[in-house]
């Protein structure tokens, strides 16, 4: 599996951020290169493929607007994902969505029958559908922890929880996902 984290050390990232704060667009371009994948992925699982691109653009525009207000007391990645989180929340508020994931994803609970379930295997679509069944903070921690490979420290800063609480949350989120998948007939991972 390819690594989800940007291939730069924290001090290197901070240096790029510092330059960006002084108006260096090239450094901001590098930051973009580093984080566009993780942010897109985060949004993909939060809002679906349809909206992910638009919101990714919005996140980076907002990041550029606000970058001068960033202070290194927190990790830049945590700060960036917090922007993504806020934009997601705004997106749902403004669109009055009841469910976060795209309506385009078929509801497998309805169509599922024993025969189909017997032939089903764990793929992107199933994962998306299963994620939809999870509580929001379970979904968020799974995306951050396992899909974007963020450290507990970063996740704690994004979600505003203690690391001890996060460990419990991670375990419960995984169990919850496994249970949902099993209900959907997926037991072979």
């Amino acid at each position, binding site marked *: *599996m*390819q690594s*989800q984290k940007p291939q730069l050390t924290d001090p290197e990232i901070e240096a790029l951020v510092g330059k*960006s*704060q*002084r*108006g*260096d*667009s*090239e450094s*901001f*371009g590098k930051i*973009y*290169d580093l984080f*566009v*994948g993780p942010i*897109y*992925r985060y949004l*993909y*699982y939060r809002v679906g493929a349809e909206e*992910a*691109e638009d919101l*990714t*653009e919005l996140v*980076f*525009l907002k990041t*550029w607007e606000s970058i*001068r*207000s960033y202070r290194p007391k927190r990790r830049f990645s945590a700060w960036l994902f917090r922007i993504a989180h806020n934009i997601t929340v705004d997106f749902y508020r403004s669109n009055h969505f009841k469910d976060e994931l795209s309506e385009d994803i078929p509801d497998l609970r309805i169509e599922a029958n024993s025969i189909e379930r017997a032939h089903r295997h*764990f*793929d*992107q679509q199933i*994962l998306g559908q299963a994620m939809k069944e999870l509580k929001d903070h379970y979904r968020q921690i*799974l*995306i951050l922890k*396992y*899909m*974007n*490979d963020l450290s507990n420290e970063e996740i704690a800063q994004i979600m505003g929880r203690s690391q001890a609480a996060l460990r419990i949350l991670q375990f419960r989120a*995984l*169990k919850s*996902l*496994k249970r949902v*998948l099993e209900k959907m007939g997926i037991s072979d*991972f």
Partner: protein
Amino acid sequence: MKFLDRLLQKKIAPYAALENKLKQCSNISLPREKQAGMKRLIMASLQAQKKSFHEASLADLIEKIKNLASQIHPSAAFQSLLKEKLITVAEFHARRFSFIPFWIRNHRRFWASIVAAVFVFGLFFNFTFKIPNVEASFVTSLGEINGDVTVMRGEQVILGAPNFLLKSDDVVRTGANSKAVIRFLDQSVSRLDENTEVKISKLFMNPANKTETVVELVLHRGRLWSRVINLINNFSRFQVKAKNTVAVAKKKAAFDVSVTAKGKAKVSAVQNKVDLVVATDKKIIETTLVKGFTAEVKTDTPLAPQIRQELQPADQKDQWVAENLAADKQYIETVKQENQTQINSQVQVLPGSPFYGMKELSEGTKIALTLDDFARRKKVFLAAQEKFAEAQVLLTKGETEKARVLLDAFKVQVQNLLQWILDHEADDPVQILTLKTQITEALSAYEKQLSLLLPTDPLYALKEVIGQVKLLTATDPQQKTQELASQAGDKLLEAHDLAEQGDTETAQQQVKEYSKAISEAVSDLKQLPSDAKEQAVTTLLDNKAEDLKILEAIAAGTTSVIADGLQIAVTDAKTDTLTKIGEAVLNVQQTGPSSEVLKKLEGIKNIDVNGKSVVDVTLTKDRVDIKSDGAVIAVTGTTTLPAASASKEPLKNSL
């Protein structure tokens, strides 16, 4: 069978013991503790097996999630386009704000906090620097009391006391060896000698313009000294009636009225001049007493008043006059101080103070946050007034340059405000009128407060600025002419006061300024359309009548050799201004005879000072002849005499 049984028993017998032994073993059991421990071990083993399986499945799940997630990434085209877009935005932004220093750009939150703090402080500041609503004491009250003083209000008899508020129809009475002072709503003052009785018959103040006042007193008996110090318009008057004689003071005067035991009314003009109206059995006689003249009127057989000039200055021969002049001097200083304090009370901080910028910001914020146009303009005017008040304080401190800057700002703000009023007159006439009234009233109040200032006073610049601004408020030619004429007349009053103080040089200068102002007014007037011109000439003639009397009063006070220059200036002023006014009259005549102008000319012709006519004006078709004591002093029209040569000697004689 028996055999077999016996054989079997024989073979089994040796094992019976063993069987018994084995049966005993069934009673042996594992101790309970060991059983529980073994159970725990077995269960733990089972749990471990289950957990291991569960963790293994979760680990698989995590691995699977990660694998699936790693397949999710934005398309290369999207990534590339978005990057290009972001860099364009970033570069544009960097160029746009490159002129702003980095330390400002990079601390937006800090600066935002500063602005927010200033805003909050500004709101608080508004309270701190709120202009106190200081009202002048527009009341009439008793001042200093000596001895037995009573106030009769209807059937009530009230013991007089300092600061006792007086009303119309109150009668103030002093007993033997008693004296009282009354301070009036127009800042004039009267002093009652012993055994005097005065009725306050009228106290009026125009609510829309507090500088328009009327005070009427009736002297029943005794002696009353009155000092009028700063009435500023033609409407206001202060009059004392004694028997069949009424003494009327306008603008500035000091006069003494008494009713003698023999029933005579006596009026003496001690400062400036006082108009006299005497009702005789045949007619009403109107004349003007100038400084140093006394009129006596017999009331039992009403005849024309006997007017005489005092050969000796009144203060030298009369203790009462001397005392009152001294008290007036002190009183005028007190009023000047009060008026300055009233303006100063609007000042909290001055330019140069670290808080001044905050105050300006606070004001600006307050004005900017006022959405209603009219309310905002009112606040702009209040801010301008504060600048004016600050300028006064700075002038007092000798900081003339800073004061000048503030006064210029005041002028500009008021000018802009007046222009806005002109532009929006049709929008909301009621609101516009309210705003205009507020401005006019404030300017008039300043004019009154500053009217005691003379050119030698460090604060005189304030008076000049108010004059300039008042000219701006004149919206039609008649108003403008009135304002110009009024300001010209003020120069004469200043000249009078300066001459009183012995500063004849500055007095002379002010008389010349008067002539210049009238000349400019006439020049402006000639450019007007005929209707407006006629109205303007009428206004000018109205004011001229009053000016001639003041000129006579100045001349009457200048008898010493040192005042010769002033006497000449007064003579020249009289001749020159009459010539100019003659020009204005002829200019109106060109467009047709005007009955109103003729009436006003007749008014000038009838001016009577100390019982004698001052000038005679003859108007023909193309010529105005002005005579004094039978000699022509000025001619305007087809044959113009050189004013200086023609006028001085006869005029001097006439005075």
